[in-house]
């Protein structure tokens, strides 16, 4: 159930160029949020920026009653948030949306992250560790350059089978993460029904993931973004087109959708 509450900043850690990890205190979110949910944050008290900004829940700490948000500075709102200090108070709506459906037992799980797409997948991964056989857990992580790659060490420590690409080849395989993923899928053509894929990343990447999923009839859940005004399903400002020609709302009908169900442009 979506709730509105204030939350104080526990810490703000700079992880890379323009990338920050905010830890926010909220027993409510830490208990209720599921991987794939997001929070809608009021950035400040002036009318500029006016609307809230959406961020995936990046991880939760039920003991401490806190959760994390991974954010990249792309404009004014994220810029202001990146300057928050411990003790600052934020107004939040959350948890919002339908999260990822967890994999059935025995399935091979592939997580495919592009850039900041790692934000919700990290939370998902942390939920899977211990429940899924390590050899059946593959993590694909792509970024533009080495500098934008996050958590490579942590991912290895967690024991996930890590596959990495960078656009410029500065780390891992040179190329797009979707190409590496497709190669892997082609190799497993015959047991594609035993796969469960989860993905998040920039629009072009998710479009490609949707095409691949449709082509191989993969069970693939993608977490979408979109301009969000209300964030609670009221304004119909965040539609995603479905194969049947109608729209669903990214905020409350998603943000996680079956990649075969949606039409991305």
């Amino acid at each position, binding site marked *: *159930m979506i709730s509105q509450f204030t939350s104080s900043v526990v810490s703000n850690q700079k992880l890379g160029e323009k990338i920050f990890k905010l830890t926010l205190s909220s027993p409510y979110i830490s208990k209720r949020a599921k991987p794939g949910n997001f929070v809608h944050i009021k950035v400040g008290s002036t009318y500029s920026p006016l609307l809230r900004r959406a961020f995936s829940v990046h991880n939760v700490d039920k003991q401490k009653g806190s959760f994390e948000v991974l954010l990249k500075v792309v404009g004014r709102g994220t810029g202001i948030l990146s300057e928050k200090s411990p003790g600052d108070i934020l107004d939040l709506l959350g948890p919002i949306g339908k999260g990822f459906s967890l994999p059935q037992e025995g399935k091979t799980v592939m997580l495919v992250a592009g850039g900041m797409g790692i934000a919700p997948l990290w939370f998902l991964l942390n939920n899977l560790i211990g429940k899924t056989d390590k050899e059946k857990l593959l993590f694909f992580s792509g970024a533009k350059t080495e500098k934008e790659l996050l958590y490579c060490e942590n991912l290895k420590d967690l024991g996930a089978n890590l596959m990495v690409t960078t656009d410029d080849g500065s780390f891992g395989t040179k190329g797009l993460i979707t190409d590496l993923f497709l190669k892997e899928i082609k190799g497993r053509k015959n047991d594609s029904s035993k796969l469960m894929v989860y993905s998040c990343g920039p629009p072009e990447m998710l479009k490609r993931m949707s095409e691949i999923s449709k082509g191989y009839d993969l069970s693939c859940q993608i977490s979408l973004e979109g*301009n969000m005004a209300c964030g609670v*399903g009221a304004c119909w400002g965040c539609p995603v087109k479905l194969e049947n020609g109608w729209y669903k709302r990214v905020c409350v009908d998603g943000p996680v959708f079956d990649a075969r169900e949606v039409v991305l442009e």
Partner: protein
Amino acid sequence: MVSGSSHLSVKIAGVEFSNPVLVASGTFGYGEEYESLFDLSKLGGIVTKSITLEPREGHPPPRTFETSCGMLNAIGLANVGVERFIKEKLPFLKSLKTRIIVNVAGSTVSEYEEVVKRLNRSKGIDMLEINISCPNVKEGGIAFGSKVKSAYECIKAVRKNSSYPIIAKLSPNVTDIVEVAHAVKKAGADAISLINTLVGMAVDVERRRPLLANITGGLSGPAIKPVALAMVWKVAKAVKVPVIGLGGIMNTEDALEFILAGASMIQVGTANFVDPQTSIKIVDGLSEYCKKKGIRKITDLVGKLKAD
């Protein structure tokens, strides 16, 4: 249902509201979306998303874009259509202890008439708000309600068919709002709400494309408050009809500005997105203001602007 004793209660077109604060069409869905966030019965009333005859899927994305102190939207009247509205959405709304105003839209006068006829058969509706601001193909993309004649005809036809009191919701994209207000009053509108959104646009310089798929959209939010206030003031002064003011209302002080300028009631739109509790904060704020200033009834403030 609604007690009339409070200092905030207000009556327009024979309908009594517990307070003058409504939530605006299109910004509050069908009410249910905000149920988990506060007690909806505290509202003066809820205005639904515009309802059309058939379900509408709406415009392709992107449908919204934030601008300086405002936002653009081109939702394209996405809604479930009148039949599903009555079956699936109205029961929840009826269950609330607040007034329900159904906002009606259409592409032709007969579509408006047909929606209204179907709503007539439903119980639990208190008023209709007629959105005559939809761009019309026949008039070259100019909104239906922007021309005096078509505004008059539309409201006249709705009035003839409606068993409910009707509010005509006016478009601000006109040369002379008073002229349009006079026309819809003459056509039988029991009240007038203004303003709907201003036509606006934004450009993605990088991609050289409009930022809304529909190219233009409606501008709302604090940016447009001065425009809304001027129109409310002009209409309230010139036309003897209850005026419902909206456009950029974010807090109690904004609401008071509209009331002083002549609005009997106000609506909260875009502010619901910024802070879902805006409307009930305003209800509380108005109540406190009245107490502090020794005002017996909020209606005593309506149009009390000293402008000479």
